[in-house]
């Protein structure tokens, strides 16, 4: 059995502990040998995306030291996984174990579909759900066909969720427009960021969604912040929180 390292992004660890637990339970439900290495902190993305790549380097090196020993690494975040898979090269190229780590670090849904080969999701979720396809998972990990590309449609999140009994996945006018989180962008470009987020929420509203589901808590944190401030009833949930109550096989 492969040994799986659980990577819980820093802000999920501190701010959304339930999402971490749900992820763990989903993976344990599959009977996987899963471990959370306590030394982990952060993948370094905030520093790297601000241009301060030298401040991110030690975190990339640390990440490799911690996770190199696992067969697979899984995280409930498309963005942090993309950091490892697509951006660690600049610091870790040639280091022992790096290629293995890069090729074996997965976002949760991606892992369930591509590696664990989950085909059946048995459970209930009788809600109207709008799917938020966070950009890095969508366009950097290719978890689904982006609306710009003219290739055969696929969606590794949808194939899991749509099997739940009672779930209604609503149709958005703009299926994969960015919510405006963008890391430090959310603060540096506050005005544009919030308008983008409000527009996303309006799209989910017009589609009749009760829940916005996604695979990156960072985007959902931004949307939740706007929803709460505007006293809107819509709820945000990580996909792991929805899948936790289902049986996957």
């Amino acid at each position: 059995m492969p040994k799986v390292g659980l990577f819980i992004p820093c802000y999920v660890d501190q701010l959304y502990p339930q999402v971490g637990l749900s992820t763990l339970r989903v993976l344990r439900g599959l009977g996987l040998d899963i471990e959370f290495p306590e030394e982990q902190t952060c993948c370094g993305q905030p520093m790297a995306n601000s241009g301060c790549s030298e401040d991110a380097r030690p975190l990339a090196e640390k990440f490799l030291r911690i996770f190199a020993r696992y067969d697979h690494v899984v995280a409930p975040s498309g963005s942090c996984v993309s950091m490892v898979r697509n951006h660690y090269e600049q610091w870790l190229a040639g280091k022992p174990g790096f290629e293995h780590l890069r090729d074996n670090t997965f976002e949760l849904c991606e892992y369930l579909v591509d590696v664990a080969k989950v085909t059946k999701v048995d459970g209930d979720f009788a809600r109207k759900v709008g799917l938020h396809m966070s950009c890095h998972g969508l366009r950097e990990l290719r978890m689904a066909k982006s609306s710009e590309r003219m290739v055969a449609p696929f969606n590794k999140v949808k194939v899991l969720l749509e099997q739940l009994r009672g779930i209604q996945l609503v149709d958005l006018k703009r299926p994969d427009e960015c919510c405006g989180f963008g890391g430090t962008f959310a603060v540096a470009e506050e005005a544009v960021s919030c308008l983008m987020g409000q527009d996303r929420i309006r799209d989910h509203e017009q589609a009749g969604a009760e829940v916005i589901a996604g695979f990156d808590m960072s985007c959902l944190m931004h949307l939740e912040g706007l929803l709460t401030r505007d006293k809107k009833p819509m709820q945000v949930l990580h996909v792991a929180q929805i899948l936790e109550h289902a049986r996957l096989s």
Partner: protein
Amino acid sequence: MKGHAESAAPFVANEPRAHWHDESLWFVRVKRDRQASTVPEWEDLRATASAIKAHTLSRLADYLEEFERNATANGIHVHWARDGAEHNAIVLRILKDHGVKRLVKSKSMLTEECHLNPYLEAHGIEVTDTDLGERIVQMRKEPPSHIVLPAIHLKKEDIGELFHIQLGTEKGASDPKYLTEAARGHLRERFLGAQAGLTGVNFAIASTGGVVVCTNEGNADMGTSLPPLHIACMGVEKIVPRPQDLAIFLRLLARSATGQPVTTYTSHFHGPLPGGEMHVVIVDNGRARILGEEAFRRSLSCIRCGACMNTCPVYRRSGGYSYGYTVPGPIGSILGPQRDPAAYGSLPFASSLCGSCTDVCPVKIDLHHELLAFRQELAKKGHVPWQKRFSMWVMGQVLARKWAFLLGGRLMRTLMPLLPRALVYGPWNPWGKQRELPPMPKESFRDLLKKEPK
């Protein structure tokens, strides 16, 4: 110079107008999707176009010289300009040699980049932009706000008002057809009175020595078939090796730009009019330097279709002028700071790095990766404000140490809920201006994990 966020603020503050702008451009994006989806080999076309550009850029000097030889054999005068100033001087000299006082121009972002119009006007030449959108912004003494749709930031009422003042149309009239007719009449006079026509170049073909100009209004053709003198201005990157290669780009350009299968006019110029003269001015203006930089080289493949602007969620909500550079949007945010990192240093940060631009780009420029690479470049060169660099350094130091990270997290989670709201949500907290902070749970994941049955 103001940064992007600051320049964008007033545009965003007018929410109905920002939404109108967003919807107008999204409409173009949707048209593009529809057209692109009718071409089964779309992704292959993109890959081929990207490969042709990469190949051409790797042998740029050879192809340019081949073009010069063949163009000269066609009777075209070829000029080389190192920068905008040289380009402007060459154009002026040609015009002076022919005693030209009135010039008509079709769309050319290159001449915008070189600030040709004010230069010629200062030398007593009347310059008329003949693309309708460009004429509109020219009348308003504004630069274009979009490279394909120069007046996209204006509503038809704004244009009605402008034409009322400038062309004497009825006050309050905003019917697009009526206004277009008025502009046509006005432009026809300018065409008939012009002594020379200047065009941009969409593609220059090395093996044939000709240039190709794509327009929807036929204004390039009018401007070059009436007066005997035609000047075409191009950046060095406009070259394609052969006509076969051109075919690939023509299938991509209009579909990506406006969602049309092809532009209404695709005009090939392979020599002067009988008895006339044709000049091509080839301009470097910093392009050779970009070519030398591996991380940014691919930005030279740009065919200026504007698709990355139409798709950009930031551009759509902040408008072309918020970028402050000739070319706005994602590609402009790479080209601008190439030219002047101090002046345009905020542009690579005016992006959520969503990557929509990269996926829409017909020549597959990895735009959002170049934006990210540019952030690093700017930080290295000291163009990122020290406060930001300092806070990132602190954050890096904390996150590199587990104990510091856990302590920081615990302090945040315990103290934050105890603080008075006015303190947490003061003006120093841009996150909290329109958003609530996330809930501060008592326990972290690690804490909960200890209680989780194995």
